[in-house]
């Protein structure tokens, strides 16, 4: 087991006062893969990362990280992991270079690595400025660099791109991809479905401190099938279009009067685009646009948990 999984947790529980942050969380992350733990605020993502990185102890349950038992040998776990927290875990009063040299010293790593990492994350010019003067993206990059001083077996990224602009987000994504090419296992938490979709080999949906579903992004999408959407010429034709969708997909269509569109999810593999258009045409609906596409993870989440991600995250 330990050779195939970089992270394996069973029944992790954690309570903060009256709040049950984790209620029996099971996770299995295969070596060399990227696992995205996806869930709304308060789902328990950060608690899970803090437990798996030895920052807090679970009330119950067990976990193996990088082949070592979290409870019995936390020091061995610490030697094999890298952590990038939700809030930059660097010292704002020290410069970027000083931060990396400090962590390198504590890890007994050669200090020359600091310059290399600064270069790699585009921080060479800012190396001698206090980290508190950095932009959000630069701080996060410095944080990521700090997590990579010793090439960790498992890298934990807690919401690595929350609050970042799209440009910085792309830079972080590129860095993560490069790491996984080098064989590092990555467990990242995110509220962004797009992030999970782009980076992850496996996605675990968590809700209320428990893993509710897991699989590849494609498998999760397959769970709810395709999304059929039609745009009609005349708003008055929407009910007719909806009736056709209802009949073909067997699920209740969602109407958008403004876009003059109707959509519904379908797990019927035999439903093709020509058939959809033919049926609409036969019903006398003037169709401007029609499509069958894989659902977004937003739609997956809505379907699987019964609640939209955004509403939960608000």
């Amino acid at each position, binding site marked *: 087991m330990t050779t195939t999984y970089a992270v394996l947790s069973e029944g992790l529980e954690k309570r903060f006062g009256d709040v049950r942050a984790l209620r029996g969380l099971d996770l299995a992350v295969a070596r060399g893969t990227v696992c995205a733990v996806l869930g709304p605020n308060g789902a328990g993502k950060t608690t899970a990362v803090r437990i798996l*990185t*030895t*920052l807090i102890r679970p009330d119950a349950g067990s976990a193996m990280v990088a082949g070592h038992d979290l409870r019995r040998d936390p*020091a061995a776990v*610490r*030697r094999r*992991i890298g*952590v990038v*927290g939700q*809030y*930059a*875990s*660097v*010292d*704002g*009063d*020290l*410069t970027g270079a*000083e931060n990396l040299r*400090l*962590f390198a*010293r*504590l*890890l*007994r790593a050669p200090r020359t690595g600091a310059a290399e990492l600064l270069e790699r994350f585009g921080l060479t010019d800012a190396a001698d400025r*206090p980290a508190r003067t950095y932009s959000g993206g630069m701080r996060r990059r410095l944080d990521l660099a*700090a997590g990579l001083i010793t090439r960790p077996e498992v890298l934990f990224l807690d919401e690595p791109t929350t609050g970042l602009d799209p440009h910085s987000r792309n830079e972080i994504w590129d860095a993560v991809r490069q790491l996984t090419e080098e064989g590092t296992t990555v467990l990242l938490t995110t509220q962004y479905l797009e992030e999970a979709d782009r980076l992850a080999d496996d996605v675990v949906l968590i809700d209320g401190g428990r893993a509710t579903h897991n699989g590849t992004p494609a498998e999760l999408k397959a769970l709810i099938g395709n999304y059929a959407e039609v745009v009609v010429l005349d708003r008055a034709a929407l009910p007719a279009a909806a009736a056709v969708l209802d009949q073909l997909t067997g699920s209740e269509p969602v109407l958008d009067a403004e876009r003059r569109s109707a959509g519904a999810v379908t797990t019927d593999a035999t439903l093709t685009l020509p058939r959809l258009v033919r049926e609409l045409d036969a019903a006398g609906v003037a169709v401007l646009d029609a499509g069958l596409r894989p659902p977004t993870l937003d739609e997956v989440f809505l379907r699987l948990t019964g609640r939209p991600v955004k509403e939960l995250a608000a």
Partner: protein
Amino acid sequence: MSAIILDSTAVLGRHLLRMRHAPAIPVMTQTMPIVFLLFFGYVFGSAMAMPGADYRAFLVPGMLVATAANGIMTGMFTAAQDSHRGVMDRFRSLPMSRGAVPLGQAAADLVAAAAGLVPLLLVGLAMGWRIEGGALGALGGFGILLLFRFAATWAGILLGLASRSEEAAGQLGGATFMLPLLSNAYLPTDGLPGALRTVAEWNPVSAVTAAVRDLFGNATPATDAAWPVAHPVAGAVCWSLVLLAVCVPLAVRRYTRS
């Protein structure tokens, strides 16, 4: 064992770098005792008649010890400030010795405090105070000062880790300013009313001040005082060791747990 030394040295380096980048706070904490020394020495001291002794020469060792007691304040403030920083999470997730973070902080504070002694001593000398206890006495006096500073800093670290916010730590830290006021640092205790005198003489600051005055040859211990002041060198060492024995394990545990 060598791991904790390497880790603490790295943490010490971090604190010294921070002092270098933001020198305002360390400079302030080193300057205030000088201001107080001049203020007490010349404003209050002018109205003070100490039979058979010079008040300013009496005051200087008291101010040295009061400054050492500031370790509570700086220790508390730095620890409270740090405990809310993300960098603590990184330290906790690194494979480093558990005690290295507070130990490195206390060591850095000791280095800064030792450096801060120099200008204070120079001002004291300019005010007419002298070390009259010979080289051994001088060595012993400074040793006791730094030992007490180290112990006070650990007490501060424990309080800082236990306090809920930086603000709370700041206010509590300010209150430690009272500690030397209720001791023999600025005034002799023999004029105090009964109960107050007992409290003042059992104040660790009093034993340390009496020890420093004794070792520097500025005053002989008052034999009619409470035990720690009557036997000041033993009293000062005992107080410091007791503080360390209580605060070090508690602070390290607190750091590991929180």
